[in-house]
């Protein structure tokens, strides 16, 4: 029995690790969503963290915890000069500016010979274990959970609901938004650093626009109104392709297109019918049942 469990573990280790990594990435988009800002620079921040950590362990022989610390701090530091001009922009413009930032990071890496440009770095030592990844997720969830219901959590919610009104109550909204951008950058950086040392390689094409879109989708599908929603979304959407891979031959569609199609349809269904994500499903069902009862 233990052998079977060990086998199961080995097979699914990668999936479990990715559930954790994707959770961190989803949370990195959530931090700014929680105060109403759509900031899509997390792929760039993850890239910075991944490359910084990989370079530190491989070229400078640094201990892994130190590399992870750098993976958190370097993107966080970059987030400050990025955020100050860019957080003033409304809605869609902020999204576009941060998408642009992500592309600039990716293009910078592609054109940087020291890190092998587009080919990326391989043979990164596998120092990230599952428990480290899950510890990181746990710490992130704890911190975000503690924010909720505190003075700062209320301020963030106020900013999301009605930023001008929040300002008239003395909330320095730009500082809060910047703090959330920095926190998100740190989370994305740590995720990048962990991923690099979990999958032995990093390459710039893993940090493009498509990647940050994935992160946004994890957060929205899970539910961006509560801090644990993005983790639910990440878990669901990381497991889904695994399940679909088994299903694909039965349906007669290639796994690649099938995964993409299901992702798209799930996202569409969520945004149209369950805008607050999977975590709001129980409440939604309750509401529908009440409405039906009232109509009867």
């Amino acid at each position, binding site marked *: 029995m233990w052998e079977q469990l060990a086998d199961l573990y080995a097979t699914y280790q990668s999936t479990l690790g990715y559930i954790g990594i994707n959770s961190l990435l989803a949370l990195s988009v959530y931090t700014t969503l929680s105060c109403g800002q*759509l900031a899509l620079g997390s792929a760039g921040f993850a890239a910075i963290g991944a490359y910084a950590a990989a370079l530190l362990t491989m070229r400078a022989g640094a201990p892994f915890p130190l590399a992870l610390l750098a993976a958190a701090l370097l993107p966080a530091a970059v987030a400050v000069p990025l955020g100050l*001009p*860019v957080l003033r*922009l*409304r*809605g*869609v*413009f902020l*999204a*576009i*500016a941060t*998408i*642009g*930032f992500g*592309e*600039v990071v990716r*293009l910078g890496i*592609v*054109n940087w010979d020291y890190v092998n440009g587009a080919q990326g770095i391989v043979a990164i030592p596998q120092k990230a274990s599952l428990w480290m990844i899950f510890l990181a997720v746990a710490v992130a969830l704890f911190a975000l959970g503690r924010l909720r219901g505190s003075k700062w959590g209320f301020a963030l919610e106020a900013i999301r609901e009605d930023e001008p009104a929040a300002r008239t109550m003395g909330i320095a909204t730009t500082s809060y938004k910047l703090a959330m951008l920095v926190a998100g950058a740190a989370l994305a950086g740590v995720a990048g650093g962990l991923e690099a040392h979990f999958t032995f390689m990093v390459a710039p094409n893993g940090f*493009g*626009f*498509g990647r940050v*879109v994935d992160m*946004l*989708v994890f957060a*929205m599908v899970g539910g961006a109104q509560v801090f644990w929603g993005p983790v639910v979304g990440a878990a669901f959407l990381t497991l889904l392709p695994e399940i679909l891979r088994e299903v694909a031959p039965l349906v007669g*569609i*290639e796994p*690649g*297109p*099938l995964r*993409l*199609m299901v*992702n*798209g*349809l799930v*996202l*569409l269904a969520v*945004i*149209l019918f369950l*805008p607050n994500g999977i975590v709001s499903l129980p409440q939604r069902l309750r509401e529908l049942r009440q409405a039906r009862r009232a109509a009867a």
Partner: protein
Amino acid sequence: MGQQIINGLFLGSIYALFALGYTLVFGVLDILNLAHAAVFMLASFVALALVGHGIPILLALPLAVLFAGLLGVALERIAFRPLRGRADSNISGLISSLAMATVFEAVALEIWGPNISRFPFGTVPETQFSLFGGVVSKLQLAIIAVAVVLFLALTWLVKATRLGREVRAVAESPRAARILGVDVDRAISASFFISSALGGAAGVLFGLAFNSISPDMGRSVELKGLAVIILGGMGSMPGAVMAGFALGLTEVFVVANLGASWRDAVSFAGLFLVLVLRPRGLLGTAALREA
């Protein structure tokens, strides 16, 4: 130098066509339609498929453009209309369009596979002319010509027809437009038709120009398109055209003088500077849209 200008104009006309579609929908609905690039891509494939069935390109192009327009109308119905009342409709619209883009890409991937497809040899004539010290192919001239015709057609549509007036009214204030008797739903559907038709045209022309069609061909153009509409001013059609040409020309010059790896950096550097220094771009209005 003349060569570069020609190349720049030709690249720019494709960017401009693509960006026009983007900015039209943004101007009318205040929503960024991220499925635009997927329509761009599908139109190209449709043209390819039609040509593969023996339909001449001169007919395949308008048919593909028509297809793109209709796809846009469907897109609006499925992904945008249900969200119209919502408070966060621009973010949810963006995500909804993303979902549709994913679905479109999946369809293309399933039907045509991930590899690059090409138009069969002989689809377009190979003749070239020499002009202003450069070499230009008939195809390049044709693309520029088609683009110009479409710009003029769009301008006429927007300025001189009733539909154009209605679209402009809805762009300014749907509530006021409705009170004035404008069929807002129809105007919005029409905007999406036009927008996606333009994007589709850009897609077919792009596919012909570079003879390279694949499910992810929209990716890089999509982001450049964003840069173009920001530079030109969100919602400004003349701005999109000007900025499209400006980007095309700049990219060609940058590649010629600094090397190909700097090409994409131009659009994003430009995007950044504009957003930080003058968010409304060249010709955009600073006014926020009212409900």
